[in-house]
């Protein structure tokens, strides 16, 4: 720091001051209330809320279905990203644009349309019902909705990394006698793993908190198809703020840990890319 450049640009105090004030009012103060509220609970009260059988069943479904959705997206999202970057096919631009639909479509619209499709008399549900597969109002429907909301994450994290991946590495591998499969497993896959993991974690985190698209398709039956956000909602509707707060704190801590994990993944990934470019 021997030669620090003088910054001639104005507005630092104004913009940083406004940023911090707005952040405080809109985000930090509301967020702090939930932790203050938790401290007003006694330990047994807290424990009763976060570890009741109904809550445990909701955790199990929320984590299980979110995991199923994120894993589905990791496999198929990767294939979508791969085809979009590497191949030409009719309708490619349309597919590329529509990947972001789950970000743009309001969740209540997604919820009712998925329910209509997968209900026993729906477009797809009617073919699955005779096979004994129940999607809507069953855990499978929850997983379908959570796959929908997480769809863009894996595609949009893998796609740019795949685009930047230099074909020279693959050519070098080929020149050195690697088969296509070897090239994929040993050259391409390792470069994509951080992006894939990031996409997986983002899709998982999004699915954990999702409400709108699952509330209709789940049927919301306690112990069976009730997810954690739905449980919080029903506690709020019964004015059980203490119980809702306790469960919300658990979910917030999980979300923040996931966010931390994603940040570490991204740092790891950019360091690896940096090394690759230096080499």
């Amino acid at each position, binding site marked *: 720091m021997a030669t620090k450049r003088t910054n001639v640009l104005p507005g630092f105090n104004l913009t940083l001051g406004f940023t911090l004030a707005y952040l405080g009012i809109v985000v930090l103060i*509301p967020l702090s209330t939930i932790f203050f509220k938790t401290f007003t609970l006694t330990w047994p009260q807290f424990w009763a809320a976060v570890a009741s059988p109904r809550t445990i069943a909701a955790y199990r479904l929320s984590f299980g279905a979110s995991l199923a959705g994120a894993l589905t997206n990791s496999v198929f999202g990767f294939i979508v990203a791969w085809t979009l970057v590497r191949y030409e096919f009719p309708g490619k631009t349309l597919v590329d644009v529509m990947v*972001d639909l789950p970000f743009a479509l309001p969740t209540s619209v997604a919820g009712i349309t998925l329910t209509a499709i997968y209900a026993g008399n729906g477009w797809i549900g009617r073919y699955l019902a005779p096979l004994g597969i129940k999607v809507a109002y069953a855990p499978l429907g929850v997983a379908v909705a959570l796959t929908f909301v997480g769809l863009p994450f894996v595609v949009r994290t893998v796609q740019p990394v795949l685009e930047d991946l230099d074909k020279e590495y693959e050519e070098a591998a080929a020149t050195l006698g690697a088969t296509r499969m070897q090239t994929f497993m040993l050259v391409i896959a390792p470069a994509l793993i951080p992006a894939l993991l990031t996409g997986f974690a983002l899709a998982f985190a999004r699915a954990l908190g999702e409400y709108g698209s699952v509330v209709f398709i789940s049927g919301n039956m306690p112990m069976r198809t009730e997810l954690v*956000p739905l449980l919080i909602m029903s506690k709020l509707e019964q004015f059980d703020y203490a119980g809702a707060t306790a469960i919300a704190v658990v979910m917030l801590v999980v979300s923040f840990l996931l966010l931390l994990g994603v940040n570490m993944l991204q740092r790891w990934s950019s360091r690896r890319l940096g090394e690759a470019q230096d080499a």
Partner: protein
Amino acid sequence: MPESVDYSPKNPATEDPPIVRRALISIALAFMGLFVFIPVIAVFVQAFSSGVGAYFAAIVDPEARAAIRLTLMTAAIAVPLNVGFGIAASWAIARFDFPGKQTLLTLIDIPFSVSPVISGMLFVLLLGVRAPIGGFLAAHGVRIIFAEPGIVLATIFVTFPLAARELIPIMQAVGSEEEEAAIVLGAGGWQMFFRVTLPNVKWGLLYGMVLCNARAMGEFGAVSVVSGHIRGHTNTMPLYIEILYNDYQFAAAFAVSSLLTLLAIATLIAKRFLERRVVPAKPEQDEITAKVAA
């Protein structure tokens, strides 16, 4: 020499075999069809399932119009506030070094990682009639929770990071040379902002606005918690859809949904169009510099 060996110039180690290519494209299209295209088509088919007349009747219904009005009003407040915040935050973060910058960036992202239901709940805890602040306001006749102000606040919270997250990298990519030149040549702060900064980031700003607007108009979970579901009074479009659906008025629910689906499709098209122009062609500038140097 065996016949099966392919000596075509296409390199088998850098190109996928045609059968793999066709299989992967089919899988990708089937997945996208199942999860994206069929749901979108279903919205419109269901919307018109009771006829065109019923479709328009559902949209011009007074309750539907009240919901549309509240949705537009909420976005009209939340979007400018968060875009203003985005400009301020991106200026401070992209143009200056200060301790705690990384922490600030993480804090800006918080609303992304909070469940919509919990987001709404924060405002119920803070401003509901049982809370100290909410109780004080209620005693003076100001209702926030279960009323419009609560909906607006919850919407501001969930859309908070969107504009800032788009503007920060764009502001960083544009660089500060032109702004420094403007200041050194004697421009005032606002002059520099309106004549240099704003034109440089205008597409990024519009991009942030479009994303923020889509989320503001479509938010459901957070708004659902603070709205209290008062019919025709505090319904936004997504809440009204839920009420219609739970009333078994499916065609009407999908008719209102089709408007939001059109908004989503318009958002995606605008996004596609804007993505390419968000950063004013930096490589070209380098080319010019290179040419001048040569």
